[in-house]
């Protein structure tokens, strides 16, 4: 039996204290197998970004544990196995696209030679060849998002974690990212991405998880979630509503 | 009304308001500003100043000395006929003396501080000789390579305090400083011994005058003193000549001209006759040196 790419077990996370206490995640457990494309769905503020930040050890769980490729987050070094694209990628404004990728690649332990070959390839794939030696401060939102994608892929990681990868992209950019996720699946990589754009999830994912107010409502195959004839959107809205009624029966 | 015009009018109104209020404020300050108020800003205990200046103590000391320099000085007032007269301003001398001390607390080695202090404080007004000597002593301690502070202490001791013997010792002290000019040792030796004092005094005056700007206070006084001393020296030499020729001392100075040793008596810049007392000492500032009981004499002001 192979180890899961991502394993989240019994994770709780609260922010603040006292009256302002806010439960961001309650007893979240998830397991994502290697080679899967997993879509993480939920309305705004549901806890998607929190989960991802916990996976990257930017936040620490109150209880429970997270593992990436069998390495426990926060205890063992796991970050070589993951590529991460944040929701709003910010870069050093005065570095060029090439320098940004060079820094990331070197920090991930790649050699200069390997980077010399890989950077032009990636930038070309992201339609950024023109911008190779331009400073990031002059980039548009979409260009930054694409550079962020190149940055996540630079060291060819096993597991990719994307936080809202399509946000701020024009239709061409979205098409590009979609194709990349499909390519990654073909290469046998694991992709974990959050989104609230249902059509993207429908097109790309093998399995999905639905989170609302910090609680996981569903985790499993996309086909199993869709009952005959209904669209993802209808099912999504109905499961969220069900939950709200259960919590607040008025 | 076009937008541009409206904006222009508004700008003129706002600018006029600003100009009027700012100008009124400046006028008010100009009316109030006196020398005593100007020194107040710096008037803090030395440790507080040090704390405020932080690592910029040297710069703060520079700035204070510049401020003192700007406060001091005589004012030239033009009159209607096209001429001008010099008005001596009334200074808050205590405040200025404290400024010098404060500046020295920030940078005890700065030459500008003690030179400027010497240029103003010991003279009349304000006649703060003791305060000046303290400033100079601090400078001397903090400038071990420099003969000047000690040299000036020696000068003040001679000129203002009228203690030639002590001044001579101080000059000898100054002469020990590396690179000190040789005349210091000569002056020191002569002042310290009895006799030969006139030449030493002339050297003292000359060395100080060479450093002094003719517009600074005390310049004219020192210039007169130098000439008076030179007159005394001429008379002293003539006395020796007289004694050699006639085998006895003259009883009065006019004997020197009557018996052909000198063509005329030298001029005394103080418009007094020189006077020869019973012991053969010549005075430029005591015309009744023979008859009157000894009077304690200060340097003429």
């Amino acid at each position, binding site marked *: 039996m192979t180890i899961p790419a991502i394993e989240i077990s019994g994770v709780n996370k609260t922010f603040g204290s006292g009256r302002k206490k806010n439960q961001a995640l309650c007893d979240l457990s998830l397991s994502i197998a290697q080679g899967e494309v997993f879509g993480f769905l939920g309305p705004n503020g549901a806890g998607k970004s929190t989960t991802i930040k916990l996976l990257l050890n*930017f*936040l620490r769980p109150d209880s429970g544990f997270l593992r990436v490729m069998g390495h426990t987050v926060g205890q063992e070094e796991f970050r070589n196995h993951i*590529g991460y694209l944040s929701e709003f990628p910010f870069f050093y404004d005065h570095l060029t696209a090439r320098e940004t990728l060079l820094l990331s690649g*070197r920090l991930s332990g790649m050699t200069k030679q390997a980077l010399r070959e890989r950077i032009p390839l990636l930038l070309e794939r992201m339609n950024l060849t023109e911008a190779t030696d331009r400073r990031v401060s002059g980039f548009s939102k979409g260009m930054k998002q694409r550079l962020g994608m190149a940055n996540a892929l630079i060291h060819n990681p096993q597991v990719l974690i994307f936080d809202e990868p399509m946000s701020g992209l024009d239709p061409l950019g979205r098409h590009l990212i979609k194709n990349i996720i499909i390519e990654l699946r073909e290469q046998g990589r694991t992709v974990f991405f959050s989104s609230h754009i249902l059509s993207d999830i429908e097109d790309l994912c093998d399995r999905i998880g639905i989170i609302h107010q910090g609680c996981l409502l569903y985790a499993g195959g996309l086909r199993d979630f869709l009952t005959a004839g209904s669209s993802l959107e209808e099912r999504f809205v109905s499961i969220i509503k069900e939950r709200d009624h259960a919590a607040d029966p008025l | 009304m076009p937008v541009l015009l409206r904006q222009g009018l508004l700008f003129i109104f706002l600018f006029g308001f600003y100009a009027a209020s700012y100008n009124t404020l400046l006028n008010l300050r100009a009316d109030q500003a006196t020398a005593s108020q100007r020194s107040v800003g710096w008037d803090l205990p030395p440790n507080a100043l040090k704390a405020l200046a932080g690592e910029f103590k040297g710069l703060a000391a520079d700035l204070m000395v510049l401020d003192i320099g700007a406060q001091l000085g005589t004012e030239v007032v033009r009159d209607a006929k096209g001429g001008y007269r010099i008005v001596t301003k009334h200074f808050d001398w205590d405040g200025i003396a404290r400024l010098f001390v404060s500046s020295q607390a920030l940078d005890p080695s700065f030459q500008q501080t003690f030179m400027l202090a010497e240029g103003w404080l010991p003279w009349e007004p304000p006649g703060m000789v003791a305060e000046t000597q303290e400033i100079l002593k601090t400078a001397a301690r903090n400038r071990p390579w420099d003969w000047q502070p000690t040299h000036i202490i020696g000068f003040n001791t001679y000129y203002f305090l009228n203690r030639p013997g002590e001044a001579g010792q101080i000059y000898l002290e100054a002469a020990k400083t590396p690179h000190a000019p040789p005349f210091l040792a000569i002056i020191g030796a002569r002042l310290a011994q009895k006799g030969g004092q006139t030449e030493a005094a002339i050297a003292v005056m000359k060395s100080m005058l060479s450093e002094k700007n003719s517009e600074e206070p005390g310049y004219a006084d020192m210039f007169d003193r130098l000439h008076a001393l030179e007159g005394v020296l001429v008379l002293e030499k003539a006395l020796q000549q007289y004694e050699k020729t006639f085998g006895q001392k003259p009883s009065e100075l006019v004997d020197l001209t009557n018996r052909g040793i000198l063509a005329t008596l030298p001029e005394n810049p103080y418009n007094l006759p020189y006077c020869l007392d019973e012991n053969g000492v010549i005075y430029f500032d005591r015309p009744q040196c023979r008859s009157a009981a000894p009077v304690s004499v200060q340097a003429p002001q």
Partner: protein
Amino acid sequence: MQQTLSNLWHLALSTFIEGIRHKALWAIVCLAIVLTMANIFVAELFTWDLGKVSVEFGLSSVALTGLLLVFFLGMKILADDLERNRIYLLLSRPVAGWHYITGKFLGLALILALSTIILGLAAVLSMQYVLWQYPSFVPPNFSWLTYAMALACQWLALLVMLAVSFLCFSFASQPFVALLLAVSTYLVGQNMELLRRVVLENTHAGILTGQIKMVMALSWVFPNLSLFDKKLVAAYGFAFSGQEFLLLGLYCLSYSALLLFLSTLLFNRRELA
């Protein structure tokens, strides 16, 4: 080990490049030109000790610019890393907290070294002019070696301040609070020696009487920045021994290392939301 060194080097290098491409560096070059010109005019205002005024002014301008760089450029880069989540870019890779802190510190230290050298050289030019114009006002023991050592001390003081701002940043959640803490520490640090002396030598030091232990404790906590202030020493050509210079270097190194260590501890506990 090799990966650690490589991480430190690349973090430092990218910080350095980011810093020098910032407009701030051009502002510094302009400031250097203005101050060089000013130096000549300022010295002309004085009658005596022109050499001292010129050296003092030159070193003071280095100090002031360095402080501005630490407080604004350095702290802005740190604040942006945290506020704009740029730090995710680095910490989603195998980069330890202390790599990040130390790498940033080294990069900013390089920028400070560069600006100290630029301003120091500009000051040398103007001083050379003043000293050449008024050779009689050159202090007799003046030496360029002492000047270079004083300049290096200025840099060491800036490094200490940089380490202080790192600690403030790991400590305070708001950049403004961090800046305030760093500036206050600077002011206290400049006067630590004065305070120590007042308490030790003056038995009637007002409210400080009897607080010797407290003041001594504080003097071990706060950086003693005035020890690095060698402006008057360089200006008058006073003796400045190599031994003292070496010890100042060690003091700077050990104190900064300690602060960076504490910063890392705090930083590692911090959640990057």
